Every structure is written in structure tokens, then in C-alpha cells.
């Protein structure tokens, strides 16, 4: 198989990917974090600085009707 899987390489791409999963399906995405630790790069370019994040709790995202 010649196709390679789509990879997210930028923050906007990540946001759109999330939207595409939600839009049109009335979907709801719930993330439950239990002391997740991650080093978040400031950019996707070369030599980014990293911020250390620790996340604990619940996040639910869904679409709503435009008012």
C-alpha cells in the first residue's frame, strides 16, 4: 500500500482534524486525563522550546447550533 497515514504537523491542522471528527455527526468527544504529562513544543519548526504540561480532569467538546 503506497498511501501513508495522514500525520498532524501543525496546531491548525490538529484543530481542523478535531472539527472534522465532530462536524456533521452530532458527535461528542470526551477526554479523561489522569495526570498526563507532556512536553508541548512552541512551534513545529526546528529547535522549538518546550513547555512542561501536566493535565488532570475531563474535557468534553461537541458542536452546537449557530444562534
Amino acid at each position: 500500500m503506497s498511501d501513508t497515514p495522514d500525520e498532524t504537523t501543525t496546531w491548525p491542522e490538529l484543530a481542523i482534524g478535531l472539527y472534522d471528527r465532530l462536524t456533521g455527526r452530532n458527535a461528542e468527544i470526551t477526554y479523561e486525563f489522569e495526570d498526563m504529562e507532556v512536553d508541548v513544543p512552541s512551534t513545529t519548526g526546528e529547535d522549538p522550546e518546550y513547555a512542561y504540561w501536566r493535565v488532570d480532569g475531563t474535557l468534553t467538546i461537541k458542536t452546537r447550533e449557530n444562534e
Partner: protein
Amino acid sequence: MTTASTRHQPAETVAELLDTLEDRPALAVDADLTVHLDGTPIEVTGYEDVVALDFPSLSALRSRWQGSPVDAMDMAAVLSSVGLTAEIRVRGVPLARVGDAAVPGRLAGLLGLGPVELVPEGALLALVTRRRG
């Protein structure tokens, strides 16, 4: 030659992201999170169209704001495009709002904060209010 996919080019800039988000439905966020950012605890609470970010002190907020890799203008535009408002709090006291429901004032512009709605009494309250418990 046929095109195998109708997938658009991925958005790589905020402007491209805004174009892609145009006419899409708004988001609703429910959140009950504690995020430690380089050791600073930030309480994140989502109320559908408002996401509150509660910082432990004014200095922690200032440090995070100045070190943010995201420009305030871009942040406001992206939040507005998905129908969300971020409310910035210090120890539970609202100081500022950015995004869809924010009404930016002249003071924020004069202070170089960008399209931010300031809650003028918030800063004073945050200075005198101590965390309970």
C-alpha cells in the same frame, strides 16, 4: 489523471485556519481540568460557550500571557470563529475576556493587550482577594 482525494491542503496559518472554520458550527466545551504549565496550576472550567482559565496569582497570569506563543489577536479570532469565549480569572475573580462574547475596550488597546475585554475592578479584587482554605 483523477484526483484520489478531495482533501484540502492542511491549514498552516491562522488565516488559513479561519478560512477553513468559516460557516462551521460553533463548539461547546465542558471542562473540569487542572493544567500545570511549567509548574503553574491553572484551573480550566468549561461552561458550553465560555471557558474559564483561573490562575493562582496575577504574576502567574502575567508570566503566562507574556510567554504565550499565540498572539492575542489570533487567539481572539480563532475563539470567535468557533463561538467560544475565554474568561481569564485570578483566584476566581474575572479579569478579562477574549473571543466571541468579549467586547474589547480602549484600555486594553492602550495597554497593548490586543482585542481583550478588561474587567477593570477585577485586577483590584484579584490583588486584595486571597485564596480561601
